[in-house]
């Protein structure tokens, strides 16, 4: 009797103890954090916001209609933009903004500094959804921070933009010529066509202001680099210096015969003058941003009242990658895309990650990119969106340039100082005030001061 009673008592006591312990699990333990999740912040971008508004009207989807409720845009005063205010914020580990729209070079700068959150590894975004060449441009090596080898995607581009070679497709067809792959070919075409086409004043037009943007893909096509992938200044190294001088010499050599001479450059300083000249049939080739295809369409759409010899149809316009030096295997484009990146310091809990994921899904999603392609002529960065695009010009730009196997999209160096100095010496050389060698030496001397 006593053993049985003891066992029963022990069993009952055990049940009581379990019940007491279970009380902890049923809510008698420490209270959990029940504070409501806060809306995440992002850098306000007017074009993106306009597309969201259009999608909210068109799709009637809650993710677009509740956009402003879920995501709070930060309007950056225009006066502050030149000062790169977010460098101060991120370098001091500010959590604001959660998501930033960054130009490709800034992505490199912020990414290498470890301020941006990896998107592929953390499953915020699948890199394979992007066109590989543009995905590569928005990836950086974070080995020094995370220990992970290889490049990590740190921003999601919403479209593909880069400078490319525009050409008169109708004229090249007429002479049974194909678009040039090298500068030699371009010069040969010009030598053949220009004497016979009197309406053409120039063989090639490049920007006379911010010329560096056009010069970079030419320079890269000669095998040179200004900075290495980890951001070090490598222009003084011999191969790079020689490539810089060779590319510059090549441009100078074409001045007067193919591209405008120093005296004629000034007329192309006003904004839009390059595309106007191409539209008016003054040039056979033009280096410009890929988005100028839409601008040319807008000019053509204006109809009567335009000068004779102007472009009237997209069939007259062809696009190709900017030529490279003969023997160089790749052609380059200076990428001008912007991408959405996540502030590493804002990722303090899984809710933030989830919200950032939702945000990117909205502003870089398929519907968004398709609408941008149809209304703004932007080339989608998503592979799936590209398959559904109906805009022929957008598809033409993608197919004939960014989809080319030898095409590399590369961001310019992020250092504004480097760019400013190189822009200055480039002008000096193109305007004939300095030889290419002297211009390079001056740039290297100034940039090596520190």
């Amino acid at each position: 009797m006593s053993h049985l009673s003891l066992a029963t008592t022990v069993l009952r006591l055990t049940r009581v103890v379990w019940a007491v312990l279970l009380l902890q699990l049923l809510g008698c333990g420490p209270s959990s954090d029940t504070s409501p999740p806060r809306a995440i912040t992002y850098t306000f971008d007017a074009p993106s916001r306009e597309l969201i508004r259009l999608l909210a009207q068109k799709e009637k989807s809650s993710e677009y209609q509740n956009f402003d409720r879920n995501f709070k845009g930060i309007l950056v005063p225009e006066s502050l933009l030149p000062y790169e205010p977010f460098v101060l914020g991120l370098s001091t580990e500010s959590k604001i903004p959660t998501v930033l729209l960054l130009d490709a070079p800034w992505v490199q700068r912020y990414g290498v500094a470890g301020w941006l959150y990896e998107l592929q590894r953390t499953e915020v975004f699948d890199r394979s959804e992007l066109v590989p060449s543009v995905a590569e441009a928005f990836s950086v090596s974070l080995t020094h921070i995370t220990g992970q080898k290889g490049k990590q995607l740190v921003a999601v581009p919403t479209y593909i933009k880069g400078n490319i070679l525009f050409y008169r497709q109708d004229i090249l067809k007429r002479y049974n010529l194909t678009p040039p792959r090298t500068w030699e070919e371009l010069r040969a075409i010009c030598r053949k066509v220009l004497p016979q086409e009197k309406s053409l004043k120039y063989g090639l037009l490049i920007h006379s202001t911010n010329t560096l943007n056009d010069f970079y893909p030419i320079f890269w096509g000669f095998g040179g680099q200004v900075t290495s992938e980890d951001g070090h200044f490598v222009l003084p190294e011999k191969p790079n210096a020689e490539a810089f001088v060779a590319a510059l010499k090549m441009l100078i050599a074409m001045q007067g015969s193919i591209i405008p001479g120093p005296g004629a450059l000034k007329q192309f300083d006003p904004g839009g003058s390059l595309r106007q000249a191409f539209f008016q049939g003054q040039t056979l080739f033009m280096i410009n941003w890929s988005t100028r295809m839409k601008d040319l369409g807008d000019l053509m759409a204006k109809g009567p009242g335009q000068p004779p010899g102007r472009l009237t149809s997209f069939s007259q316009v062809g696009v190709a990658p900017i030529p490279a030096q003969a023997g160089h295997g790749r052609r380059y484009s200076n990428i001008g895309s912007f991408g959405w990146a996540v502030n590493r310091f804002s990722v303090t809990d899984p809710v933030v990650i989830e919200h950032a994921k939702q945000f990117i899904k909205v502003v870089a999603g398929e519907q968004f990119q398709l609408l941008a392609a149809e209304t703004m002529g932007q080339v989608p960065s998503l592979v799936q969106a590209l398959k559904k695009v109906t805009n022929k010009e957008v598809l033409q730009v993608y197919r004939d340039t960014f989809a080319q196997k030898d095409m590399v999209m590369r961001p310019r160096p992020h250092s504004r100082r480097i760019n400013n100095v190189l822009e200055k010496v480039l002008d000096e050389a193109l305007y004939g005030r300095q030889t290419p060698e002297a211009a390079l030496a001056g740039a290297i001397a100034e940039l090596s001061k520190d």
Partner: protein
Amino acid sequence: MKNTSETFIRYSLRNRLFVLAGATFFLCALVILMFFPLLNITLEGLQSRTINSMQAAAEVEATTISRLLVLEFSSLKGLLEVTPDSNTEMDQRIKDLLWEKVTFNEIIEGVELIQGQKDARGRRLTYLFYRREAPELKPMAGPQKIMKSFQGLEQDLINSITTQQRVDNTIQESVNRGPKEEGEMLLRYMPVYVLQAEEGAVFWGVAKIGIDTNRMRQLLLMQSQEQTTIRRNIWVEIILSLLISGVLAMSLIYFWVRHITEPLRTLSMVTAALQGAKPEDFDLWLENLKRVDAQGQAEVVVIQEVLERLGTAVPKLGQRLIDGEGQACLGKVIARGLPVFQAWQAQLLALEQKLGGGEAGGSAHQTLTLVRTRIEMVFDDLSHLWSDPKDRWDRIDVTPGLQRAWRLATIGLPAEVRPHQEFAPLPPVWGSEAKLTQAGLYLLVFAVDLAPPAGEIGLEAAPSPAGGVRLTVWVSGNRRTASECQGWLNPFGDPDRIRGSLGPALAAAIATQHGGSLTVAPRESGGAVFSLELPPLSASQEPYEPII
């Protein structure tokens, strides 16, 4: 009786209920006390979480303050112009700014502005000012501009910031955990950018900002003390609650248990009183049984009703038993005397034949007469015992009746047994002669049964010192104990004894009925002595109805 009483106390329903209620409360108290360790764990978890969140909040605060300072430094375009040898207005402005920030902001312990570039000896241009409030530290005269070398982890941290413009938080935490020559404070290292319209954010160097942690330490200490107080108070409250609730619970339990068990306890006591009750107390016992208040408890009512039925039936059964025992006693006397009667009959026949043949002389006639007299006497004795009215009470002399009982009891007594009788002149007593004779017969027959072969048996009737009558019946034989002797008078105390003779018990009942008593004691030489005392004659003497 004593043992029975202790057992009852130990295992009574009331005591069991008290013990079980106490054990239940003790178990509940134990369970409640088990909450204390859980509470302790909860409080420790709370403390840990609070410390963590306070530390996190302090670090966020330190980062925010440092960020505000760095944002302010970013507008100092002159920073890009200062050199180790310069002594310009900008140098003074930077030092003044540091003095203002450190002096007027209690939470800022000190600031260092460290240029990114190093000289050939690895030193960096540094503007610094610390308040140095700790007693062991010598206060600084004012902000300084020096060339400073950094060592160890701090050097690694500054190098990583100047090369990558990125703060390695792991190294920063290590620096904060280690000793600091500036005193105890939370250090924050941040890259300093100078904003230029044309070049954007231009990296200049590192800001090292010391944040006061005394406030946090005081808060942590206060929180720890508060938790100790809370823990102690809760412990006292739990103990007090248990004590108060224990007293209250036991009081209520005591009241209710007493209330609930009272009918059963009363019934039990009344029932137990039967064990020591005398026959004359039986009516009183029965009356007491009827007066037990069951308070509507079904179980008590059932037991009470059954006991009442038994109590009513027992006197009737007792009367029947007495009647039957008297007849059985006479039957035993007759059975024992049968050989004697047969011998007397044979002797009578032989004498009659002899006298009929004329052969006998005068002695035969005398013998015949004697035998006839004996036979007639036996019949006369039996007739008296059988038919005398037992309910007739009067002033009587007990001697004839006792002599009749003696004669009947000793008929057929083995020849080896030596009978002794001694009758002194006795005073009259009030009573039923038939019953007293029957009582004597009971004792004598019982004594004859006890008498061993060649033993002795005796009857002595004499006046008692009180003026009544004392009848002493003794018998020789084995040594008897007092309890054995007492057991003869109380055959119902031991159910086994019921199988034996009820004579002594009935004789005792008759003696009691007459206001007398019967005692039994062992004889020193072996055997036993029965002593029946009757009170002297009294006018107020009233007969009792026989019960047992």
